[in-house]
């Protein structure tokens, strides 16, 4: 199935973000282990660790026992707290062990895209939950009946601004008929990035309802285009769509001029439309009209001439687009 290759390509394009999340995960694990080594373990363990930290040059020169004793933490943690910290650590190591699989979601036929994405982020969010549990435990502020919840799941809506800036990206494989993207708007915050790898046919502009001034939105067939999503320093979503769908990019970072931010590369040629996954022809027309409306409002000057089949010849690209849309949409069905 070609979408497997596209998943790999999408992961590759997002590797900056995935690496940084995994590196943060690894660092957090390291920090918690350091903390455990200096607080949890017996004196001998602490001395042994200090000896390692001082390195072989210090052997014979520095008395690790005495050195270590100076930094014995006054913080005394009870067994329950230490156990909680250990559970947090287990959560993090379990997530870290999954490697790049962490960032891949497969939406089976008929499943809700929004729910699957929410669940994946909730699952990944356990990393933030675990970090919080550790921090609260460290300061003895942790109400002990709550920890299981944060470690078991930590949904996106509870993520802080800082956590959303650290947000792990997701590559979501979904059938075109299940692609109802509007529900994903709630995840468009911080640095969250989603790439939808669309299987089979989809509606022509499934992502159009997600275009807001600060959100990167892209439909493309070429995974190489995803580098723009990767380099955008805000929330964003891209879909690797079938050839039949529109290709456009809304890049808030493309410049101060609104017209430069939206680029329409190609529009569907196929005149015949039928409902896709419960999205009616009329709704599909709405999507296209919405794109047109945005393009008109933003004064879009397409970088490339839209590939428009059967449209009346016109010098103004917005007029062209409008003419084409009229030819495509069965307006009698609207309203």
């Amino acid at each position, binding site marked *: 199935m070609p979408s497997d290759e596209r998943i790999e390509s999408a992961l590759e394009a997002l590797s*900056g973000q995935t690496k940084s999340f995994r*590196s*943060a995960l690894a*660092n957090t694990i*390291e920090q918690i282990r350091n903390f455990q080594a200096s607080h949890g373990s017996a004196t001998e363990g602490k001395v042994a660790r200090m000896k390692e930290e001082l390195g072989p040059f210090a052997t014979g020169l520095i008395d690790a026992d005495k050195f270590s004793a100076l930094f014995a933490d006054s913080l005394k943690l009870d067994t329950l707290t230490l156990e909680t910290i250990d559970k947090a650590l287990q959560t993090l190591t379990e997530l870290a062990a999954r490697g790049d699989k962490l960032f891949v979601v497969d939406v089976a036929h008929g499943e809700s895209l929004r729910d699957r994405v929410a669940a994946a982020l909730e699952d990944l969010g356990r990393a933030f939950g675990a970090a919080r549990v550790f*921090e609260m435990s460290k300061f003895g502020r942790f109400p002990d009946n709550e920890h299981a919840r944060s470690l078991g799941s930590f949904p996106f809506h509870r993520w*802080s601004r*800082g*956590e959303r800036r*650290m947000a792990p990206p997701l590559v979501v494989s979904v059938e075109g008929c299940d692609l109802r993207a509007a529900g994903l708007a709630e995840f468009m915050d911080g640095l969250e990035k989603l790439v939808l790898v669309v299987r089979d046919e989809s509606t022509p502009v499934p992502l159009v309802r997600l275009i807001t001034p600060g959100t990167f939105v892209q439909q493309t067939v070429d995974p190489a285009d995803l580098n723009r999503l990767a380099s955008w320093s805000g929330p964003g979503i891209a879909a690797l769509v079938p050839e039949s769908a529109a290709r456009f990019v809304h890049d808030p970072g493309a410049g101060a001029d609104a017209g430069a931010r939206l680029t329409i590369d190609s529009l569907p040629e196929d005149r015949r439309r039928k409902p896709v996954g419960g999205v009616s022809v009329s709704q599909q027309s709405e999507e296209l009209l919405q794109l047109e409306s945005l393009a008109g409002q933003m004064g879009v000057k397409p970088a490339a001439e839209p590939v428009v089949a059967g449209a009346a010849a016109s010098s103004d690209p917005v007029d062209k687009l409008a003419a084409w849309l009229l030819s495509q949409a069965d307006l009698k069905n609207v309203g």
Partner: protein
Amino acid sequence: MTECSLLGCGQDEDQYYSIQDYEGGIPRWCPGCGDLAVLTAVEKLLEAEQLAPEKTVFVSGIGCSSRFPHYLKTYGFHGLHGRALPVATGVKLRRPDLHVFAVMGDGDCCSIGAAHWIHTTRYNTNIVALLLDNGVYGLTKNQTSPTSPEGYPSNTQPRGAVLRPMNPIATTLGVTNASFVAQTGDWIPDHLYETISAGFRHKGFAFIRILQRCPQYTTPLFDEAVRNPDLVEFMVHPNGIPMNGLEQIYKHQIPHDPSDLDNGRRLAEPDGRFRLGLFYHNDSIPCLEEVRQQPLRTAEEKIELLNAELDRYAV
């Protein structure tokens, strides 16, 4: 490197910070000192931008102005005479996630720290640099500074400053990679605020010279200009510093597109009035911390990479 650990990022950042949240110790500057006006403008900026106090760092050198960080409740580094900029560069290089300001006096920046001023301009580190220029060494009680007007009598040059003052704006505009060069005055709070605010929003080294009064020693320097708006001229442009109604008071205005470096340089030369506004602005110059940014590695990755390096030295 922004955040490299999950720890700390769950802190509640959605809290609202009021001016009081930024206030540090009670300022011990002389009454009427221009530093107070700058402090007020900066506190207003911190509140307007809702900068987390723990994510904000003020670095200063030595001099009256360098007490600045003590009067804020952010992180601060009150360092050495003339050396605010290297410290600020070090902070920003390793922690681009922090908002870094450098506060310097005229002796600090333009005399003992001149090399750092020139080179940090070239590095274009994303720092807001405030030059609090009162034309005199105040803290050490009235010595000639590089910006003291010619003829100004001080304790080191009692028969008057023997040299013409240096022009910090023209100097900065002459440095490669200068990206934001502005001038404002402590007696025009709105403009002062707008200038610092524009400097903060600029991505790169924002150099802001603030003409300010020293009530002890150099009051006469700007006294007349404070009383008489005719002695001030604003550079105006849609991409410049907003005037917010000041145009009603200050009739002398000269249009200047801040992207025009040559004209900016020409306007930097004195011709009778104190010229305030944005001399030059260019957002497209890369910042040192961006140019030098490298993906961070975990300890395990480093060990693996280092072992690969050591293989080349194996015998």
